[in-house]
């Protein structure tokens, strides 16, 4: 990898904190995004990017790890956090017309954005968002960009064959474990098995203040507002109901026969 320094785009999402109750509301059943943070699953993608740069031998200051997000104005806090952790620069696609985008509309906006940023070696993402939870976007992004889709990687390495840069990673399924290989550039999603994400340290927090975040609008990308957001989405959420709160159960302390009481409970519920 000595030849040219790595150029990695990490896609990150600003999502409602999963530690608190989350709510759907309004006519389109959209998610309340007021208490949001950098999605914890995207921290694994950022860490993977930083580790690839560190092990690639790219000279300091040459490699780029661009943290990219799309979302409302406050989503820039996710980019700032990524800069504190170690991303070199940030891009925020922000436009009111993006609100309510489904996976198809999101992948269209992100694909257009990635093309706009110019040639990259890798587009890294988390294994899913913690709000939408569908894992559709990485696959749809790869399909739209016509780039290799190496997804759910639990290991990741770059290597070089006769000057051709390649990426390899392991993907664990239920019945199998695959070793995958692709030529760069590629879209790669990583699981929470791949690494232990680092925290921002004091030096990182100070350094982040000098890093730039570029804000782009749909017009900057030449995207038609009606092709994204609610109008550009291919799916509708017709209705959303909170799950009924679970009624408080019976809690007993074991006095020596709790196993038998447990079986009594199962029998009473017709579960035996």
């Amino acid at each position, binding site marked *: 990898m000595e030849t040219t320094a790595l150029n990695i785009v990490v896609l990150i999402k600003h999502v409602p904190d*999963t*530690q608190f*109750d989350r709510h*759907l509301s309004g006519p389109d059943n959209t998610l309340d995004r007021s208490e949001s943070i950098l999605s914890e699953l995207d921290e694994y993608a950022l860490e993977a990017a930083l580790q690839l740069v560190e092990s690639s031998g790219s000279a300091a200051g040459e490699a780029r790890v661009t943290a990219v997000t799309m979302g409302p104005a406050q989503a820039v806090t996710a980019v700032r956090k990524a800069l504190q952790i170690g991303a070199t620069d940030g891009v925020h696609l922000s436009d009111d017309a993006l609100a309510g985008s*489904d996976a*198809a509309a999101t*992948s269209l906006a992100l694909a257009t954005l990635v093309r706009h940023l110019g040639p990259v070696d890798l587009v890294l993402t988390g294994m899913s968002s913690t*709000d939408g*939870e*569908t*894992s*559709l*976007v990485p*696959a749809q992004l*790869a*399909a*739209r960009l*016509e*780039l*290799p*889709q*190496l*997804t759910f990687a639990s290991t990741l390495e770059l290597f070089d064959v006769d000057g051709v840069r390649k990426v*390899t990673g392991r*993907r*664990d*399924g239920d019945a199998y474990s*695959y*070793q*995958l*290989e*692709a030529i760069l550039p590629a879209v790669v999603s990583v*699981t929470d*098995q791949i690494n232990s994400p680092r925290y921002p340290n004091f030096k990182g927090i100070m350094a982040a203040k000098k890093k730039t975040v570029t804000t782009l609008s749909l017009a900057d990308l030449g995207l038609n507002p009606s092709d994204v957001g609610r109008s550009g*989405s*291919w*799916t*509708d*959420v*017709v209705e*959303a*109901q909170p*799950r009924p709160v*679970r009624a408080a*159960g*019976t*809690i007993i*302390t*074991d006095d020596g*026969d*709790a*196993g*038998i*009481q*447990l*079986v009594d*409970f*199962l029998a009473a*519920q017709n*579960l035996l």
Partner: protein
Amino acid sequence: MSAVLVFVDRPATGLGKPTRELLTLARRAGEPVVALAGEASTDIVAALGSYGVSRVLNSAQPELSEYLVAPKADFIARAAELADARAVLIENSTEGKEIAARAGIALKAGVITDAIAVAADLTATKSVLAGSYTSTCRVRTPVAIISVKANSIEPAEAETPTEPAVEAVTVDFGPASLAVRIVDRQDKPVSTRPDLSEARIVVAGGRGVNGDFTPVEELADVLGAAVGASRAATDAGWIEHSAQIGQTGKTVSPQLYISAGISGAIQQKAGMQTSAVIVAVNKDAESPVFEIADFGVVGDLFKVLPQAAEEIRRRRNS
């Protein structure tokens, strides 16, 4: 009646339960047509016929198993065009969802994942936000792609079996679809226990089992249950990663979930809180798992689980 395409991926022996569920759903929503990857053996074709399948579009092209996901999506897109399908139904595995994602781009079709019910008009119901909401979704596009979770419907054969016509399909894969090569494939040992995503009962163990899953497995076996685990247990290497339940593992919704030695962190709850009945065994009365338990035991799992297993055996023998 318009065609509803079901993707069936290289069935080894007979049709799995998830496939039979998809075929049942497809028959309720339209005319069931199958896109079959792999060999179209007489047995498989007859089994598809018993579910009323009218056409089988078949490809056994090696690319389907030599490269990740993309060729399968191309095959489905081609089959959906040939069948003029109004919907495509796919298993909701990690791979199934990604196949759906790419086929969606190829067909300009809306994709709904994680469906737990699909109505005849293709409205889909799913749990969202880690099981805290139930939503109803529809696609706006002419073709709908829906990945459906196991246990969404009781599989039912057609009243009158059909003799499906098998048509070979040759897909012209583009270079971008043959870009991620599977260079090595390691099969995992096949468990004799029920599959986690399909099981009626799940017994799961966490850090509290302290390296020894025996009591969890013993109770699972008397109940005919699948064995699950928290990430703490899979990370420790005490059990296969594929047993992990939660945000980054499997989402299960069985009739009964027995949680043992698991604290009930938000990421664990995300994978099991839609279970019909939850039983928790934990020695710490303050554990958050008790907040969602229908029946909880504050106690040592190494005492409670074996006693319960023994009691079930005793009742069955008397």
